[in-house]
């Protein structure tokens, strides 16, 4: 190498060194908050967009804090949380007894207590691709029979009965489901199984149970498949529906369109699942899908945060506490609604959840 090349290499190394030093020194630069350190969480991919918004806002308020959230999926999130690999976890389903997950999570938090709070509620929309039909109304039984492939044509009598005065084409119905295991599927089939038990006799799980339907990967895959297929119908997070038609679902005597308010209302109507609550800080809900309350949209996905009241270090505990406080605060829920299209927690529910987060023993 010529001397001038060497000079260039040395110069760029020097610049790099200065840059690294600058990064390192940001630790002791004065900031308004006393929080510092890093915590990691993992779990539900449904929460990903919300977590991203929370992390971005939280880190800009607390510059010395690093929070990460790995959207590995609910199963992976529960596993990592129980194993102690993460400080907090996200899960699309409340912890359950089978496979020892509930007990495992309780043991992980000893001598502290386990915290489990809903932090993310998202309406699941029934989307359809039928350009000639602007508004579609479905009753739960018809919906279940479309998805179990009993009703195969759009001009079926059952659909016509829900949509008086609407001219339905004789297009073949292509029901689209998720091909990957997902919390969205689990909540959707849980709804079908509770409100239309005669038509929907399958076991509830995150795996789609009916064979022979169209299947696509992820929310984006379902939306893409429904957009591509004339006469297709599917289910996806309401925020992702885009230009597609969104069906109104019959609740009680009226047809309800998915909306943030209507989705948040279901948690107020639903009882807590006491059997799964093993500490005063756990709030697993048994969603009341059969509710007939006006203005309630029952097809929702509820996702939970898992955390402990005690951590190995005060620093970690105060970080988790502050982060969870922000996540369920009105500002945090608003940020999630903007970024992820979720339904903000209602004030009354938040008041119930706050003591759980307060219980984290920080900074002693």
């Amino acid at each position, binding site marked *: 190498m010529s001397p001038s090349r060497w000079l260039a290499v040395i110069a760029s190394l020097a610049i790099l060194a200065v840059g690294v030093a600058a990064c390192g020194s940001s630790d002791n630069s004065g900031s308004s908050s006393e929080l510092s350190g890093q915590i990691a969480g993992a779990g539900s*991919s449904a929460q990903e967009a919300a977590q991203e918004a929370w992390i971005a806002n939280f880190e800009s308020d607390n510059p010395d804090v690093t929070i990460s959230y790995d959207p*590995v*999926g*609910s*199963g*992976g999130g*529960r*596993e990592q949380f129980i194993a102690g690999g993460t400080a907090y976890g996200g899960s699309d389903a409340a912890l359950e007894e089978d*496979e020892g*997950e509930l007990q495992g999570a309780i043991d992980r938090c000893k001598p502290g207590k386990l915290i489990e709070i809903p932090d993310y509620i998202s309406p699941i929309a029934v989307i359809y691709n039928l350009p000639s039909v602007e508004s579609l109304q479905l009753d739960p039984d018809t919906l279940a029979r479309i998805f179990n492939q009993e009703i195969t044509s759009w001009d079926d009598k059952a659909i016509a009965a829900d949509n008086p005065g609407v001219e339905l084409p004789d297009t*073949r119905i*292509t029901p*689209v489901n998720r*091909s*990957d*295991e*997902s*919390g969205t599927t689990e909540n959707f089939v849980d709804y079908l199984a509770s409100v239309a038990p005669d038509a929907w006799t399958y*076991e509830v799980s*995150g*795996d*789609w149970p*009916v*064979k*022979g*339907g*169209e*299947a*696509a*990967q992820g929310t984006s*895959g379902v939306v*893409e*498949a429904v957009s*591509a*297929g*004339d*006469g*297709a119908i599917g289910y996806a997070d309401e925020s992702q529906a885009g230009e597609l038609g969104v069906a109104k679902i019959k609740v009680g005597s009226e047809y309800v369109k998915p909306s943030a308010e209507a989705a948040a209302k279901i948690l107020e109507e639903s009882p807590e699942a006491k059997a799964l609550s093993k500490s005063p800080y756990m709030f697993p809900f048994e969603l009341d899908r059969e509710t007939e309350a006006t203005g309630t949209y029952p097809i929702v996905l509820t996702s939970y945060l898992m955390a402990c009241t005690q951590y190995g270090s005060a620093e970690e505990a105060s970080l988790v506490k502050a982060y969870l406080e922000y996540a369920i605060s009105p500002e945090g829920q608003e940020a999630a609604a903007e970024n992820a299209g979720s339904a903000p927690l209602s004030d009354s529910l938040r008041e119930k959840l706050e003591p759980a987060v307060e219980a984290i023993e920080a900074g002693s």
Partner: protein
Amino acid sequence: MAGPLAGQILAAASGGRRRWGDRVFSNLAVAAGVTILALLAGVALFLLVESLPAVSADPDRLPGGKSLVDYIAPLVFGTVLAATIAVVIAVPLAVAAALFISHIAPRRLVLALGYMVDLLAAVPSIVYGLWGIFVLGPAAVGVMEWLEADLGFIPFFEGPASATGRTMLVASLVLAVMILPIVSAVAREVFSQTPRKLQEGALALGATRWEMIRMTVLPFGKSSIISGAMLGLGRALGETMAVTIILSVSGVVTFNLISQANPSTIAANIALDFPESSGLAVNTLIASGLVLFAITLVTNLGARAIISRQNIQ
């Protein structure tokens, strides 16, 4: 026994002892070889150990609630079906492309064409997947409707044709495009080494260009076509991302290639279900991975056997 002899000659040339550089090189080479074997054995061991719980578990607790064989069999069917169709489509195309490049194309085009075919291999599989759902799938809907209407008596095209185009036929076509470059590259390499005297002899005896290719190039390159096809088959069997994105899977076993209900493949099924799995479900997925490992191993061993028999002849 050329090895020891060459060694002796080298040793003699260097004054009766092996040179330092030789020792370092041979040790490095042995270490590299052993590492590869150890890695392979490690992967096999991991698959075996992790799939044991699924094998010994009560069938009721497995995903799907049936036995492990019932869970994996449709996946094996889908995997083999998709890969086989891909190979059947890709091999004739790849051989034709290789012949064109090695024997027919004008000299100026040869280099550019060779690069283009090789470039197909540089496209990431997820890009092929996206191309499959956004372009090829929708474009194939009309063709599949035609197949259903006019060739519906063949079980492959029984229908009803999918409205979205995310079918086994489209997935296999994408796989075929993905394995085309490797099959073509292997074949091309050997075709261009066909002895000149054979080719010129055939032409001198009055053979046309096609007869010359049929009588000299193809027999000479036969083992390379087979090994290329097997390499392609191996890649198609294990291809994950493109199939995961494109195929509309629903766990059925069917030869119907154009409907919305298709069997899944082992690799795609693992990719789709692993993120939300825990406990025994993970062991079950790993057990299916072990089966895929065995299938690809047998495929490759078969290819080796065929090629070595060819070479002896």
